[in-house]
């Protein structure tokens, strides 16, 4: 029963509509307007600085190599005319905005595209056309009217919008210092419009909207600084989510054919010009004709990018990928981009080390839960599967001395460099880095008949961690595995505080965080994040 359900599910997942004609990505001409549509009353509370930052960050994140850009000057009359019309428009629906765009920008955008049409059309001259009489004998560029029309029909405009904005601030005095904790949430997205060109006439039509939301946190001594840092964390993460969402749009997905297959290694004709990055994911598949004559696209595993060919210099440069879930691959199969954020999230469950060599005292941890984020730095180091990881584990802690037992928790937080070695679905990794280790125990004591006090004992230390693990890839964005880590760190003293944060003399007791950790892990590669843990971590240290 389970098997048949699984098979049905797999068939459903693997087969989606397709066509026999080989699909290839062609460059698009993108126009970005320096305007953010504030589509709700809450978003209109944003300051000009906040709106400008959001717009600039979006512009930065959406400067994808796969696009050509048509610059529209921020201070142009067209821009102010557009802003004026948007401000005075009661209807901010996509179709209403398309009408405004038609009135204001389209002619100018098409003019820019037209000026660059021949240069951009050269990119569309394919291998077959390059081998034809016109290029080989007549020494022509091989451009056709079809190429030019394709260029003039490759125009898109995007317009960011914000339809939700909320910010909060909390002030708290700690150790005589005022600390401000700010939280900012943004929700919104991008409106995409398509420019159509037909026999000299142009028009804009609404294409689709991509939405996301993001939150940022910051704790600072200065309220304004806390608010700004929380806002920028939210806005930057918001822009990054929209970058992935943009890559997910069918028209913008990178698609090509596999030209070489050697074992589980593939070669394909895309590279730096299209903005391919090391470890990017691509789905492989092929068109299948069923017994009813219907065509469908059958996925057959996925590969990740190993090396990126520089096709800016050599147009024939080939990029190579390594198969992770490897099907029966052959040249000519389709390769379709699967955009994700360049990071993996690890969820972990297992045990962490905790002990003491004090006679008569037992200090242990039984279980721990952890989360880790592995940022892919492969592009930075120009080698596949290098990661910078940030993780934290929380577990229980228990100290028994004579008949008395205290309970508490442990926190291990580490920053490491990790290298993975992929072999088909299996990967092994090794990592090493620094770790912050803390154990905290609480002791509820009756001071007198009417008062009960809770004392907190904390042992902290900084140490090192080395580890290794193995994962099994389940699907393009899920994997499971086991990790082993060896932590090194000892503490001799415990700080003691009560409910009122009153410090007492340190307690001398050896605490060893040195030892082994074994954890089961689940790995997920997201397309969007609600907040950026790294910036949150940075912003929470005043």
């Amino acid at each position, binding site marked *: 029963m389970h098997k048949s359900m699984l098979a049905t599910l797999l068939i459903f997942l693997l087969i989606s509509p397709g066509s*026999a*004609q*080989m699909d*290839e990505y062609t460059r698009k001409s993108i126009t970005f307007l320096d305007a953010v549509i504030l589509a709700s009353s809450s978003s209109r509370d944003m300051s000009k600085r906040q709106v400008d930052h959001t717009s600039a960050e979006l512009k930065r994140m959406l400067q994808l190599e796969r696009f050509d850009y048509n610059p529209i000057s921020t201070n142009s009359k067209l821009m102010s005319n557009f802003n004026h019309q948007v401000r005075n428009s009661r209807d901010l629906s996509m179709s209403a905005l398309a009408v405004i765009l038609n009135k204001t920008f389209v002619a100018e955008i*098409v003019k820019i*595209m*037209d000026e660059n*049409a*021949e240069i951009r059309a050269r990119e569309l001259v*394919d*291998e*077959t056309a390059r*081998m*034809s*009489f*016109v290029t*080989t*004998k*007549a020494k*022509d560029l091989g*451009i*056709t*009217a*079809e190429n*030019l*029309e394709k260029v*003039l029909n490759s125009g898109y405009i995007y317009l960011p919008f914000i339809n939700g904005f909320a910010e909060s601030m909390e002030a708290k005095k700690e150790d005589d210092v005022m600390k401000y904790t700010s939280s900012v949430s943004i929700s919104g997205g991008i409106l995409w419009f398509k420019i159509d*060109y037909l026999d*000299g006439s142009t028009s804009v039509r609404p294409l689709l909207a991509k939405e996301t939301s993001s939150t940022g946190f910051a704790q600072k001594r200065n309220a304004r600084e806390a608010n700004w840092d929380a806002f920028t964390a939210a806005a930057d993460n918001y822009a990054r989510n929209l970058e992935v969402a943009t890559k997910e749009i069918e028209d913008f997905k990178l698609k090509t*054919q596999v*030209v070489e*297959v050697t074992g589980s290694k593939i070669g394909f*004709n895309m590279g730096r010009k299209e903005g391919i990055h090391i470890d990017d994911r691509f789905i492989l598949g*092929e*068109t*299948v*004709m069923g017994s009813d004559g219907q*065509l469908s696209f*059958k996925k057959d595993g996925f590969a990740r990018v190993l090396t990126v060919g520089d096709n800016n210099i050599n147009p024939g440069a080939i990029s190579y990928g390594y198969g992770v879930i490897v099907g*029966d*691959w*052959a*040249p*000519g*199969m389709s390769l379709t981009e699967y955009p994700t954020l360049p990071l993996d999230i690890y969820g972990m469950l297992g045990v962490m080390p905790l002990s003491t060599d004090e006679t008569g005292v037992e200090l242990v941890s039984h279980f721990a839960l952890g989360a880790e984020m592995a940022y892919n730095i492969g592009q930075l180091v120009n080698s596949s599967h290098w990661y910078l990881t940030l993780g934290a584990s929380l577990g229980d802690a228990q100290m028994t001395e004579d008949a008395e037992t205290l309970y508490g928790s442990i926190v291990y937080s580490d920053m490491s460099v990790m290298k993975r070695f992929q072999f088909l679905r299996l990967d092994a990794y090794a990592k090493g880095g620094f770790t912050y280790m803390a154990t905290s125990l609480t002791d509820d004591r009756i001071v007198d008949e009417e008062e009960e006090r809770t004392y907190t004992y904390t042992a902290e230390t900084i140490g090192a961690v080395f580890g290794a693990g193995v994962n099994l890839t389940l699907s393009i964005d899920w994997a499971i595995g086991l990790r082993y880590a060896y932590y090194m760190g000892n503490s001799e003293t415990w700080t003691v505080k009560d409910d009122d944060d009153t410090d007492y003399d340190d307690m001398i007791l050896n605490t060893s965080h040195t030892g082994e950790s074994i954890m089961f892990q689940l790995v997920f590669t997201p397309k969007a994040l609600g907040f950026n843990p790294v910036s949150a971590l940075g912003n929470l240290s005043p």
Partner: protein
Amino acid sequence: MTRLLKSVLILSLLWSSALLAQNSNLPISREALFVESSGPSEVVILSTGFGIHTPKHWFDKPDQSELTEGAKLDARRSAVWFILLGGSDPLLTTSEEKSKFSGVQESFFAADNIQKYIVWESDRFEERVKLDDGNKLRIKRVMRLNKRLIQEDLEKMGVMSAKAGLAASLGLPNIMVLPEAPKGKNPIDLLRNDVTLKKGAEVIESYLTSRRYDVLAPEQSEGLNELVSASKSLKDVEEDATYLLALSVGADIYITYNISTESRKVGSTTVKKAAVAVRAFETTTARLLGTETGYSRERPSMDAMVIEEGINDAIEKVLARITAYWKEDLSRGVQYKVIVSVSTAYDLEDAENVLFKLTDALEEMSNTSKEILLTDYTLDYLIWANPEKYQKSSDIYRALKKTIDRALPDGKVKRVSMNRKLIVLKIDME
């Protein structure tokens, strides 16, 4: 038990026939499409190939690389097959050629042999579809083939008559190329004054010379009037200057063409498209041998380029038809057009007698003949003479003169005009 044996036998037969089919070198798909003629010797073909899985045992599953390699090879074979036997203008046209080729086709379609005709093939597939539960793969791929090399190999193998052989027995067809001229206009003047038409002639002549045809350049039209006045039958066509020019220079075939270009704007770029109609005629009869219109793609390029692209698209097919015609004509002998006008000094009865004697003589000296026109005083005849007996037109003239001199002691044969295709005579009373 008997039933079981029968089943096993049938299965074994099916199995072995499938294996035999797989082992054959002949193409499976035989689907291809002519894309362009990229020069006088090369053509670009979009070809379909099938890769078929042949299980070696019951549990043998299809292998992608086996299917892909099989499909790529079949696409190459189908492209070569298309040049040889497919489409509207194949290389092998006569039943004799086809029959000879069937004897060598297995070795001809061997993977190593056909590979030498593939000048280039695209890295990418235009189409790739899995069929029959993954047991079959269909691909479409663009490739460039050396058509001339295929032809030369077939000539060496004796499948096709070598051009050299033709030349020895009949001579290569002499072809004249001229633009279509409106009534009253001289095509030579058009050629001299119109750069576009001049370019068109150059491209066609380049094709012809590279295929080793003899190209006649009609640089002057003097003598045409003399030719026309010599024959009453030619008066009907005296406005067709191209036909007359071809006759006057002795071309076996003449090719006419017209060129039209159109332009439009895509954005601010002007794109041009050329349409070129090419027609080939048998000179002696003005019979249309082949006509084809070629189109260029719309390009932001100079006129000359789109014109050449348009001509490339048309000329290949027209030349194939000329070759087919020439092969057929070769089997009948050397063709001559003979026009004889009898002096009106003869009365009707005598003139008729003269003409009868002439037709008898022509029938006798030709393998085949065809009467075009017979009036009271004029005779227009096509004859196909044995090239071993009559190697040139003067041999025909000499034989005719001898016959007439014998039959008409009071008549005198006068040669009005004569070239390798046309003999115009006049019989006067002495």
